[in-house]
Structures are given as C-alpha cells and as structure tokens.
C-alpha cells in the first residue's frame, strides 16, 4: 500500500523526513534496497523512507579491522572492497541488499557457531530515532564498553527503533583455505551427535550441517548430491597448513567418507547459508512456508520429530543442529512452536504477505518481556512512526 517514497541523500534529510512523519502522524516503511522486505511482517504505512541514497564507504582501514559506511551502501560493493584486501564479514551473511538492511535484519550464516552474528560485528551506528533526533551509539574501534551497547540493539530490530544512517562494522581476515569433511548415510540424530563430536574437538570447526537425503540430492555440488543419501558436513577453515593438519586429524576421528576441497567447500556452504534446496522444495510444494528454528543444538532432531507427528515437513540442520530450516504446510505455527519444549524460537521466513500480516512471524514473547520490548520501542519511537508492526503487531 506504499504510496509515496521519500529518498533522502543526507542524514539531515532523513531527520527532516522523520520529523514530518511525526508531525503528520504518518508511519514510514524503512527500506534499503528492499531485498529483505519478505522478512518480518508487512508494514502498514503510506510512505516509504528509502535509504539507498545514503550510499558510500566512509572509512575502511583493514589493519584497524573496521569499516564505516552509510547505511544504504550496497553489500556487493562492500564485499568486493573487503575481498580486495583479503577480508570479509566473518558472520557469513547472505548476499544482496544494503549494509543497513543486513544489520537491521540481524542475519548470520553457517559461521554463526564460531564467529557470531551481525550483532557481534556491529560496532557503531548513527541514525534518526522515531523522535526525529539524530544520534549515535557505540564507536569506531573494535573494543569499546562506553555507555550502553546500542549497536547490538539495532541488529535484528528491523528498522523499528531507528532509521540507520551510518554503520561501523568489525571486519576480519578471510580464511586462506577451506575444506569440508563429508559423512554420508547418517540419520538426523546420529548426524547431530557426530556434529557434536566435531564441535567438541579442538579443531575449530566453522560449519556443522546435516542435509537429509532429499535435500542433499538437490545440491549443485556433485560429491553431495551423488552421495546417495543424507550428507553430514563439517567445515574447517584457516591457513593452508593448519587446514590440512586438522582435516587429517578430524577425518580420522570422525571416520569421514570424503573431503571436499576449497571450491566444493565454498560452494556447498553457500548453499547451506542460503537455505540449501529448501527454496526449490517451496516452489514444488505449492503453498508451503519456510521456517527457521533456533534451538539448543542437541535438541534439533527431537524437535523435528515432534513436529513430524502432526505435520509433513522437509528439514535440514545447520549450527551443529541448533538451526533447523524447515518447510511446512500453512497453519503450522502452533505445531512448530509447540514442539520447542527444549527452548528456542521459530521464525516464519517465507510466506505470502497476507499470511505474514495475520500471524506471529517472530516467536511471541512472554508478556513481561513483551512489555519491556514495548517500553524499549517507545523510548526510541513513542508514536510508532518507524516500521510499525514489522516485528510484532502493535510494536
């Protein structure tokens, strides 16, 4: 229902836009390049605040491990700039969109288990609150405890607290080499137990996923799709000699069936990061929805088993079992969330707008926590001008 798009090119213009929205009581949908519009609940707003005009890297100092850019800077530009200096964002976010959109959606890839998430790498922010006040939080150095850690709160807040204008992130050396141990034919429980063994080893595992047979068969990596069944993957990264030594030791310890070299390793983890074959499942499955469940790693298989009692689902596991990607028929929210007896939360990450508007996309919070979240929202945006309802109805 967006009618008008405002596209500021300076922070002062962002402040002006929010000030107008505040006085006119007109909510704004906050956008970067709109690539993650399908995440969260659809925003009911008559105006969009498009921040893609705030673009450009302000400072990149590889030796200081920091990069500061305007929030609307395209991620592909930042990625290639980092790659030129052998660096990357260690939390392995999916591609596309802007830096602001990436931080606001708080995403992370398979390396979440060893390198953390967007929150762990967001060092400083500047932006405009729903009070039309420009402010900043955090800093531009890697180690800082001065004042509240506002940048962390921004990560994963989906633009509901502040229209971000500038972000400083921690950047790290990209690993020189990558290799992946492959085990085939394990069932979910045996696979997660194997991943646990790998993660308990001192070999600094940076990826631990399990693809059941149906998912593995869809892989574009021949060694994975050709394994003839379920595939369990354990990634080791770092300096060449170190990767070689760790691959040798862990291969022996886990009795792995095969080792994927650098190119195949990079390719298969890109697939895992992006949801493996589940997107294709969705296309075939008609009206199925895609979910992501974050659970204690050892509870992954049992959680899926509980859901399977009432729902026909396709799944695969990342984060050593702690992240379950799952496709399920519509109206499975209660069944999925009812299965989280070991703790954790479930997020609906792909479904039509009409569905996401009418359901809890994010796990509903217990009331005391919801009440505190409302007060936090009000402290930044008392009139509900910024992305109202994007995370929770009425917030």
């Amino acid at each position, binding site marked *: 229902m967006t009618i*008008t798009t*405002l*596209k500021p*090119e300076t922070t002062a*213009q962002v402040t002006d*836009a929010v*000030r*107008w929205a505040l*006085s006119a009581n007109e909510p704004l949908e906050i956008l970067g390049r709109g690539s993650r519009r399908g995440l969260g609940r659809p925003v009911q707003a008559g105006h969009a605040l498009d921040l893609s005009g705030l673009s450009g890297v302000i400072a990149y*100092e590889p030796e*200081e491990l*920091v990069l500061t850019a305007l929030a609307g800077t395209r991620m592909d530009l930042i990625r290639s700039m980092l790659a030129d200096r*052998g660096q990357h964002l260690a939390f392995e976010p999916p591609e596309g969109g802007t830096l602001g959109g990436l931080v606001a959606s*708080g995403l992370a890839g398979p390396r*979440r288990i060893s390198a953390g998430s967007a*929150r*762990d790498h967001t060092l400083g922010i500047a932006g405009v*609150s729903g009070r039309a*006040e*420009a*402010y*900043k939080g955090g800093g531009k*150095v*890697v*180690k*800082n*405890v*001065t*004042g*509240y*850690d506002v940048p962390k*709160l921004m*990560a*994963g807040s989906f633009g509901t607290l502040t229209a971000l204008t500038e972000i400083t992130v921690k950047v790290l*050396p990209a690993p020189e080499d990558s290799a992946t141990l492959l085990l085939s034919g394990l069932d979910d429980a045996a696979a997660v137990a194997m991943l646990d063994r790998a993660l*308990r080893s*001192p070999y600094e595992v940076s990826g631990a996923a399990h693809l059941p047979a149906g998912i593995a068969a869809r892989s574009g990596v021949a060694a994975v799709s050709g394994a003839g069944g379920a595939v369990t993957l354990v990634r080791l990264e770092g*300096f060449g*000699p*170190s990767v070689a*030594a*760790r691959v040798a030791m862990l291969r022996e310890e886990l009795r792995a069936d095969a080792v994927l070299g650098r190119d195949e390793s990079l390719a298969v983890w890109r697939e895992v990061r992006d949801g493996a074959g589940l997107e294709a499942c969705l296309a075939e499955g008609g009206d199925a929805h895609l979910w992501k469940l*974050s659970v*204690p790693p*050892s509870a992954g298989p049992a959680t899926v088993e509980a859901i399977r009692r009432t729902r026909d689902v396709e799944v695969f596991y990342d984060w050593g079992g*702690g*992240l379950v990607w799952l496709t399920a028929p519509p109206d499975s929210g209660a069944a999925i969330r009812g299965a989280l007896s*070991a*703790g*954790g*939360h479930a*997020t609906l990450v792909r479904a039509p707008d009409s569905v996401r508007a009418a359901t809890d996309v994010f796990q509903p919070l217990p009331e005391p*926590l919801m009440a*505190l*979240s409302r007060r*936090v*929202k009000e*402290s*930044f945006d008392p*009139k509900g001008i910024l992305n109202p309802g994007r995370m929770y109805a009425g917030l």
Partner: protein
Amino acid sequence: MKMPVPDSGVIARRREIVEALRAIVPGEGVIVDENELRAYECDGLTAYRQLPMVAVLPSTVEQVSQVLKACKAMGVKVVPRGAGTSLSGGALPLADGVLLGMGKFKRILDIDYANRCATVQPGVTNLGISNAVAHEGFYYAPDPSSQIACTIGGNIAENSGGVHCLKYGLTTNNVLGLEMVLMDGTILRLGGKHLDAGGYDLMGIVTGSEGLLGVVTEVTVRILKKPATARAVLLGFPSSEQGGDCVAAIIAAGIIPGGMEMMDRPAIHAAEAFVHAGYPLDVEALLIVELDGPAAEVDHLIDRVEAIARDKGACYARVSKSEEERLAFWAGRKAAFPAVGRISPDYYCMDGTIPRKALPLVLQRMQEMSDRCGLRVANVFHAGDGNLHPLILYDANKPGELEAAEEFGNNILRLCVEVGGVLTGEHGVGVEKRDLMTDQFDEADLRQQQRLKCAFDPDGLLNPGKVFPTLHRCAELGRLHVHQGELRFPDIPRF
C-alpha cells in the same frame, strides 16, 4: 566527581527500610553494623569510598525480586555488587542506598557439553567457570586480569574483556542466556542454550550496562575447547612506532593472534625488576604475540610472525620453547600493574581505546602531558584491539597529586576520543569516567541512552550516579516535541 546528593528523608527512614529488608532476607543477610559495612565501602577504584546505608545479601532470585520491589515501593536506591573488583567505581555505594551483594549466588547449575554451554549463578568467579569444565578440556574464553576474583555477574555488568578478546570476543560475545530482575521485581529470561534470543537484543543492552538496568541472577555462557597448543613470541623494537607497525602488519597478513600485548620502556623495566621474566631492557617497545590452535597452525604462524617482525625492524626476538617459557613471557605482563605499584606509592590505571595507527601520536602527546604535570606514566597496551592501559604514577600522600593524576588521566582519555577512539575499552564508565561522557557523546546520544534506562527503571533507582553525567527525569526525557506544519524538506527526492 560528585555523587547525587543523599536524600536525608530516605536516611531518616533507615530503620523502616532495614525492617522491610529483614522481612525478605532473614538473619545475617541484612547488614547494618558499620564495621561490617566497611567491607562494601569501595570497589577496585579505591580512591572513592562511601558507606552504604545498609547492605543486603539475598540468596534466591525471589528474594532479589522482593528486595527490588520493596525498594522501588519505598523509593530507595539500590547499588548491585558482585566481587567488587570494578576499576571504574561501578559498585561504589550510596549513603542513601541499599547495597545489593550477590555473593551468595555461588552455584554452578548445569554444565551441558552437548550444547557446549554452562549455566551458573552470577556470584561464580570467571575462573571458577573454566575450572569447572577444565577436566573435559573446555574453558570460558574471556579472561579479565581479575579472573580469580571477579564474578560472572560483574563480567556481564561490565562486558569484561581480557588479553584474548581480539580472537575470542568480550563477555557479550560469549553469553547465551540470562535471568535478570528489573527494579520493579519482574523476573525475565533472555536467550537460553540456543543462539540469538528472540525479539530485540536486550541481552546485548544488558551486557555492559554497569548495573543500571537490572540485576542478573543466572547466566548461561558458551564454553570452548581449549586450543591444542599455545606458543608465544617476545619481540623487542627500538621504537614504539616500529612495534605498532609490526602489529598492523601481522593483522594485515590475516593473522589474529590469541593475544598481542605491548609494553613501553617504563613498564618493561618495572615488570622485569619485579618478576625477572627475562625481558630485554634496551628496547623501547616489547611485544608479546601468542598464537594458539592446532600445532601445525601455531608452528606455521610463529615463523610468519617472526619474519614480519624482522621486516619491521625488531631488534630482539625469542620464541617460547616450552610451556614454562611461555608462561614466563606472560608473567611480566600479567604482573605489570603490581610491578608499577612497587616503583610508585600509588598508580592510577586508565583504559581508553584508540585506532592503533594513532599509537605513536598518543604516546608522544602522553609524554608531553607527563612532562608538564611531572607525573610519570607507564604503558601496557592490548595492541591487537587498540586498548591502552596507561598507568599514572603518583603519591596520594603528597597534597594535590591524586587530583593531578586524575586530571592527567582525564586528558589521556580526551585524547583517545580526539584521535577517534573511546573512553573505555573494558573497565567501564562507572563514576570514574562519567563526567567525560560528554566528550565522546552529544547531548542527543546520551538522552537516547537514558531513555533506554527509563524503559528498564523509570524511577532511576538502580545504580544512579554511574555512567551518566547528568540525571534527567524519565518524564522529561520522554516528552516528545512535535513540530506541526508543512513538509519541510522540499529538496528530498520523492517518487
């Protein structure tokens, strides 16, 4: 440095307040005797002392909840305290406040290797967690120098770091879940054994909030497998510039060492005289680079670091050949503070972070300040992440020296901000750096942070007088100034 003026009305109600607390925490859990209260009069920032009105030592989360609720109802301020090792005065008591000691929360509740985490009460020491999982080859990564004494609850409050945090992160990067109590008595759980708490990252805000937002009653932390090997290289340089260049070159080569510490000449000499670590005395900067991980990796990287150091002009290089030798390299660094304590009656430890490239400039300006005020300074430096610990040498018995040392310290921190850094890298703002916050943050930045405080503690009763230089009422902070009128941005492109 001024604390909020004590409320004589509250002090006059002391008896009533003590009785209310005794109704919640029976027996010796409520302390009123002046001699016993002395134990709480200061934390690690010993220059500031204040007896609390009363101290209470609850032993259950329900008691914490009731104590906070009762204090809120009575309009009484509360100062939470762990082991009292804060270097910034985060646990400095208030004359009209209740000191809430968490020392009885000492239990390790659950060690879950299958999920690689441990759940403990906040009074467990940092090292206590590592010790509890050591037999399985695990440890808890953040390792502040006070780890033998400081508690995990205090680590959460301060977002503590340590020498290994460039590679392994601060406290905030190693916490999975929290149970906490708000000032109104509400008990909340954030996160758990899974990654990414749902909703806003409130755990991220609470960690490092210096006891202003809530009282932590349970903590779930990530535990890691100990690296298979660790070796250290000792590198000496004819100038701090060359030392700094070497650090930058190591990182530019893609190497993130487990630890990378630098000391300047005064710190090297003090440490060597104290522990005889075998440090070279004819260098201006000494670097300890520790590499940890699989043996193959460590061997490979030691060679590369040595080559980089030679290239950057190192005049001294020694690689540890044994675990004893590695520990000896560290012994000097770890004893740097007490070592400086031996050569001066008192010292004042600062904690700013700078962009590393500014190190030569900062050291030079610091020397000029030192010459001007006549107080010596020794520097230890977490070189990897730019966290500087200047130690200012002074004598508190000489009139005016404490004030001069504080002024010197403040100017160092202002310099850190001026070159693009921050006031504190790991010790926290507390009362110590409170009045410098306006050097780093604008009015609008601080107002927004204080509004966050209002969301957790609208009456401002939890640890007031810390972190923020000016206290505002939440009603005043919350007021919204709406400018009615036209769309005032004719120049914004619209579609």
